[in-house]
C-alpha cells in the first residue's frame, strides 16, 4: 500500500515537475519575409523520451511535423500561408515517470515590406544593373568601348545584298515565342536593322509570325524601319502576316513559303524549339543563306550544323546593340562583360571556399 501511495505521489510530482519545468513553447513570425514561414521554439528543463510538435491540418487533425528528444531547439515551418492562423501543439512524454504535458499555441504568419531572404538577389541585381548604367552613362559622355567582331552579324548585310542581287525575298522568323519571351523581342530589334537595310536595298522582306501580339510588334518595327530608310511608300503590311498559333502548323506554313517563294536569305532569330532543324534543313534545300540565333541551348547544335551563321546564346541579345553601333547600346554590352568577369571570379572564389569546406558563398547563391 505504501508503495502504491509513493508511486502515486511520485507520478503526481513528476507530472507537476515536468509541467512546471517545461519552460516555454513559443511561435514567432519569421521576420522580414513573404509570410510563408513561422519559427517554433521550445525549451524544456526535464528529460523526456519523446517530444513531438504537431500542427492542425485543415481537416481538423493534428499531424506530427517534428519528432525529437532534444530538450530545446527551434524549427522553421515553411508550409504556411500568409495571414492565416496556424495551430500547433507540443507534446512531451516521459516513459519512466509516465508523465506527459501538452502546450497549445497559434500564430499568424505576417507579410513584411521587405524579404531579407532576397538580399543576395537584390545585391546582385544592383551590381549588374549599376554596372550597365555606369557604362551607358560613360559612353554617353563620349567614352568609346571596344567590341570585338561577331562574324555572324557582319554577314547579315552580305546576305541581304545577295537577296537584292538575285531579286529574291528575305525571310525573317522571329522565333516561336510570344512577346513574353525576351528572345522574341531581341529578334524583333534585329528585324528593325535588317528591315532598314532591306528598305534601302529595295529588297522584299517576308515575316510570318506565330502570335498575334508578335504580329503587331513586328509590323510596328518594319514600318518604322521603312520610314527611317525614307521608303515609307514601299512598306507593305501584308508581307508581315500571322499563320497560326500552333507550333507545327506554323512550321508547315513556313516550309511552304520557303519552297514557293524561294527566299535568298533566311533569318531565324528568336526562341526556337524542336522545329529548328525542320526550318534549317528546308531552308538549306532551297539554297538560301541562313543566319540563325537563339538562346535555347538544346537547339543551337541544329542551327550550327545546318545554317551558315549562328548567333549563340548571348550573341542574340548583343546583336541589336552591335548592329546599331549606338554608343548607349554598346555601353550596355560592356555591362554584360562586367557580369561575365564577376561570374568567373565568383566561381573561382566559390570553388576555393568549397574546397576549404566553407559553404556560405554557395549557399548565398542558392536561392529559390
Amino acid at each position: 500500500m505504501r508503495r502504491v501511495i509513493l508511486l502515486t505521489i511520485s507520478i503526481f510530482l513528476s507530472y507537476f515537475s515536468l509541467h512546471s519545468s517545461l519552460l516555454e513553447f513559443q511561435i514567432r513570425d519569421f521576420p522580414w519575409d513573404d509570410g510563408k514561414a513561422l519559427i517554433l521554439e521550445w525549451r524544456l528543463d526535464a528529460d523526456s523520451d519523446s517530444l513531438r510538435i504537431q500542427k492542425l491540418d485543415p481537416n481538423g487533425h493534428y499531424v506530427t511535423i517534428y519528432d525529437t528528444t532534444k530538450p530545446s531547439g527551434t524549427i522553421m515551418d515553411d508550409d504556411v500561408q500568409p495571414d492565416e492562423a496556424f495551430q500547433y501543439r507540443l507534446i512531451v512524454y516521459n516513459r519512466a515517470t509516465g508523465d506527459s504535458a501538452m502546450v497549445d499555441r497559434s500564430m499568424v504568419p505576417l507579410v513584411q515590406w521587405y524579404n531579407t531572404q532576397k538580399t543576395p538577389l537584390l545585391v546582385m541585381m544592383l551590381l549588374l544593373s549599376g554596372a550597365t548604367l555606369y557604362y551607358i552613362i560613360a559612353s554617353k559622355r563620349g567614352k568609346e568601348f571596344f567590341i570585338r567582331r561577331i562574324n555572324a552579324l557582319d554577314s547579315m548585310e552580305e546576305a541581304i545584298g545577295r537577296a537584292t542581287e538575285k531579286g529574291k525575298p528575305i525571310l525573317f522568323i522571329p522565333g516561336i515565342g510570344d512577346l513574353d519571351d525576351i528572345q522574341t523581342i531581341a529578334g524583333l530589334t534585329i528585324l528593325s536593322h535588317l528591315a532598314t537595310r532591306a528598305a534601302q536595298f529595295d529588297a522584299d522582306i517576308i515575316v510570318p509570325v506565330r502570335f498575334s501580339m508578335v504580329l503587331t510588334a513586328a509590323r510596328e518595327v518594319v514600318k518604322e524601319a521603312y520610314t527611317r530608310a525614307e521608303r515609307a511608300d514601299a512598306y507593305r503590311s501584308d508581307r508581315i502576316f500571322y499563320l497560326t498559333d500552333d507550333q507545327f502548323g506554323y512550321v508547315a506554313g513556313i516550309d511552304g513559303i520557303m519552297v514557293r517563294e524561294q527566299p535568298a536569305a533566311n533569318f531565324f532569330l528568336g526562341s526556337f524549339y524542336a522545329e529548328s532543324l525542320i526550318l534549317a534543313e528546308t531552308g538549306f534545300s532551297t539554297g538560301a543563306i541562313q543566319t540563325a540565333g537563339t538562346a535555347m541551348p538544346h537547339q543551337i547544335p541544329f542551327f550550327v550544323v545546318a545554317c551558315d551563321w549562328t548567333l549563340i546564346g548571348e550573341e542574340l541579345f548583343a546583336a541589336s546593340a552591335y548592329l546599331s553601333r549606338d554608343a548607349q547600346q554598346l555601353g550596355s554590352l560592356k555591362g554584360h562583360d562586367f557580369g561575365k568577369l564577376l561570374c568567373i571570379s565568383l566561381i573561382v572564389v566559390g570553388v576555393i571556399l568549397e574546397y576549404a569546406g566553407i559553404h556560405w558563398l554557395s549557399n548565398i547563391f542558392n536561392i529559390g
Partner: protein
Amino acid sequence: MSYINTHVRWERMTLFGILFLAVMIPLILPIGWRTDVSPHVQMVYDLVDKTPPGSAILISFDYEPSTMPELKPMAMSLVDHAWQKGHKVIAVALWPMGVQMANDVFSELTASPSEISSDEIPDVQTTDVKEKDESDEMMTPAVSANSIRRYSSKRYGIDYVNLGFKSGAMVTIKAMGRNIRETFPTDTFGTPIDSLPIMDNIVHLRDLAYIISLSAGDPGLKQWIMVAHDNFKVKVSGGTTAVSAPGFLPYINNRNQLRGLMGGLKGAAEYEKLMGTFGPASIKMDSQSIAHVIILVFIAIGNVRSFRRRRKQRQARDKE
C-alpha cells in the same frame, strides 16, 4: 528552279527511304538486342522494389499523346512493378491530357484476358513466359503478347485511383503537400475521395512512399523535385523524354533530390529488362539501334564522298 539538283534530291530520297525501312522493319520483326542497365534506371527500380508492400505511391502523368511512345512504356512498367510489389497506385496529372494517359495505362493493365481481343493473344506464349517469372510473389497475372502482366483482379478505388488533372503545377503540389484531400476532393470521375478506400489514411504528400513523375516537359518532374522533395522531403523519381533527361542529371546528387531517372525509350527498355519483360520499349529500342547504325553509316559515307570530292578538287587545282 530549285537549288538542289536532281542528283542531290535522289541522294536525299535514298537516305530517307533507307531510314524509313530501317525504322519500320524491326517493329514488324523484332531482333531482341538487350541493352545494359544504367545506374540511374537501376535507382528507380530499386526505389520501387525496396518499398514495402501496402505502401501508397503516386505517379504523375505529365505527358500527352505526342510523347506517348517514350513515356507510356515507362508508365506500364512502373504500374506493373508497383502492383507486383503490392503498392497502391495513385495517379494525378499536371497536364490536362495526362488524365487520359493514366486511364489508358490502367485499363490496359487491368484488361482481363477475356477482354483482350483475339488478335492480341499471342500465338507463342511460352517463348515470352520463360523470360519473366522471376519474382511473381504477389500474383500470377495473365501474360499477353508483349509479356506485360495483366491484373484483372486489381480494383479501382482500392488498388489504384486516378485523381485527375489540376492546373498550376507548383501551387497544386504545394497544396497537396498540405492536404491531398482538399486539393483533390474527388477523383477524375467525380467520386468523392472519402468514398475511395485507397485514400484512407492519406492526407499529405508525406504519406506517400515515393512519387514518380513521367514528364514530357514543363510542368512536370522539375516541379515535383522542387516542391515535393525540397519542401516536403518525399522521395521523388521520374522518367522523361530523352531530350530533357540530361537537364535532370544534376538533381541526382548527394542531397537525393532525384532518386534515379529514366531517359527516353532507352530508359524504358532498361526498366523492362530489369522487370524481365520484352515490352514495347524493348521492341522499339531495336528500331532505334538500327536507325542509329544507319545514321552512322550515312556519316561514314558522307565523309568518304567529301574526301573524294576534295581530292578531286585538289588534283584539278594541281593540274592548273
